[in-house]
């Protein structure tokens, strides 16, 4: 047996758990999910083939689905923009060499990401309690009558954005690592040319950080479509459907209304969305994955 064949055999042997896992827990479910999406299936009776009926209903016969899409896209466009702007801003401030205690701040911003979803939800219900929560109390000090947050159709989504912002410390860590990779010489050259802090930020820091921002935004978009636990625990989609997000609606269709076929069609639409953004990510950052 020659070397190349031996290496191939060894390589496949080492990755064999992944191959089995990929076939059983990824590829098979993917394919059968597509099959189920073409059926009417309530678990009790065998699946009935209905062709593209589920997809047709989804896009033409289900008003709630449009509302769900709108809610989710609000979280992507408004929520993710706010979160990205804030985390990048904080990271740039933190990356200042003159700032003492960077390690301390980094820990403080990271801690919330460790809190389990359920506790996060209990905690934020309390933080945003309309009468006795801390946010409205502090707003009260400066004379603002705080909203009802999770119980208000207008303010429930911003409440989830606040919650997500609190848990976005992971992004700050990633941005900081990215910022530390920007060569100091660029800033020195800019200083010699008389650039001020703002100019440096817009002509050096942000452009150099762009690949990392893109990575975070794209994983953030896919993550937003997946977000489930918080809305399931806190609002169950309410009030007035204002927090009915994509994965929550999918879950309800599958496990509360036993519409497995319909939920599978939603899953495939979700797959396409994830696929498109993943391809964009792979295309734009060609270096991803082969850095040796």
């Amino acid at each position, binding site marked *: 047996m020659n070397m*190349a064949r031996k*290496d*191939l055999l060894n*390589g*496949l042997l*080492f990755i064999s*758990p992944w191959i089995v*896992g990929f076939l059983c*827990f*990824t590829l*098979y*479910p*993917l394919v059968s999910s597509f099959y*189920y999406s073409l059926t009417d299936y309530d*678990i009790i009776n065998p699946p009935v083939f209905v062709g593209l009926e589920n997809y047709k209903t989804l896009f033409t016969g289900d008003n709630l689905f449009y509302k769900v899409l709108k809610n989710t896209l609000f979280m992507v466009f408004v929520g993710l923009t706010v979160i990205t702007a804030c985390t990048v801003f904080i990271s740039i401030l933190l990356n200042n060499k003159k*700032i003492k205690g960077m390690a*301390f701040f*980094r820990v403080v911003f*990271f*801690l*919330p990401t*460790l*809190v*389990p*979803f*359920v*506790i996060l939800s*209990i*905690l*934020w219900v*309390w*933080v945003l309690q309309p*009468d006795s929560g*801390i946010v409205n*109390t502090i707003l009260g000090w400066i004379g603002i009558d705080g909203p009802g947050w999770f119980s208000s159709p207008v303010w429930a989504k911003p409440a989830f954005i606040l919650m997500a912002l*609190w848990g976005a410390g992971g992004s700050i*860590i*990633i941005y*900081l*690592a*990215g910022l530390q990779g920007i060569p100091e010489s660029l800033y020195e050259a800019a200083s010699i040319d008389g650039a001020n*802090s703002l100019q440096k930020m817009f002509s050096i820091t942000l452009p150099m950080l762009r690949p*990392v921002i893109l990575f*975070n935004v794209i994983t953030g978009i896919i993550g937003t479509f*997946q977000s*489930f*636990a918080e809305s399931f*625990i806190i609002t169950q989609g309410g009030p007035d459907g204002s927090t009915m997000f994509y994965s929550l609606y*999918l879950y309800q269709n*599958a496990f509360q209304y036993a519409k497995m076929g319909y*939920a599978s069609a939603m*899953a495939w639409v*979700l*797959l396409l969305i*994830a696929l498109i*953004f*993943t391809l964009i990510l792979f295309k734009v950052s060609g270096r991803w*994955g*082969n*850095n040796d």
Partner: protein
Amino acid sequence: MINSTSTLKTSPVVPAKHRSKKLMERLELAAVYVILGLTALAFILPFLWLLSGSLKSSTELFANPPVWIPSKPQWSNFATAFGEFPFLLYLRNTLTIAGFGIIGAVISNTLIAYGFSRVDWKGRDGVFVLVLATMMLPFQVTMIPLFLMFQKLGWIGTFLPLIVPVFFGNPFFIFLLRQFLVGIPKELSQSAKVDGASEFRIYWQIILPLSLPVITTVMIFSFIYSWGDFIGPLVFLSDNKLYTLSLGIQQIMSVNDPRWPLLMAIGVSMTLPVLIIFFILQKYFIQGIAFSGIKG
């Protein structure tokens, strides 16, 4: 301010323009500290709120204006919570799942990552791109067929759906480990091969011991994931004797008029262990997170 006048005295040759620039820099730095300090405070407050809530009586919890420091700390909230809520059973279930999760993650992902980094085979990097692509695959896409498959196997109502797949690799951990393994000099393996060592022996005796830091990262992430996982137990554990802490708490939270002081006490008890692990093993966290977004 005091400082800037003293520089003025000791170095009278400094031009005025330079001085104002220095002052600007100081103001800027002060502004940065103020912003960071306030943000940090906003990040810490919810934790303190949880802690104070867990020690309040029901009346104090609902008081308006809110009570910041409980007048008489109700330590009994903790005892009551552990007693009324099957805390120990749920804790044991959570630890069982987390324990198998750690074992499975370490065994499978180190082998797989070795195959993707230390052995040169045709098509390797192409297959690795597939691994990366599955990292982006939302759980919701495979959730329904997995549920139906586990149901046919009779696994729903057991821990198996949350344990078995862990033994077949996780794309994020494969990625993390591979990043590390790629950095170990090739010469180490080559000289061992010249001495007649098999790939498995190189993996076991050379590469694994060198990878302990990143394996620790994998173990921590795996534990944190199992500890907080919600949707997995919700979909796959139908029997309430098998509930994890997360799922059990959600159940008591969803009843009408839940007893909030107890929930807060459980919240503290469930958050504290993770925070302690974090403070002991901090560097592995930061490394792991920064690694995942940056390298490559």
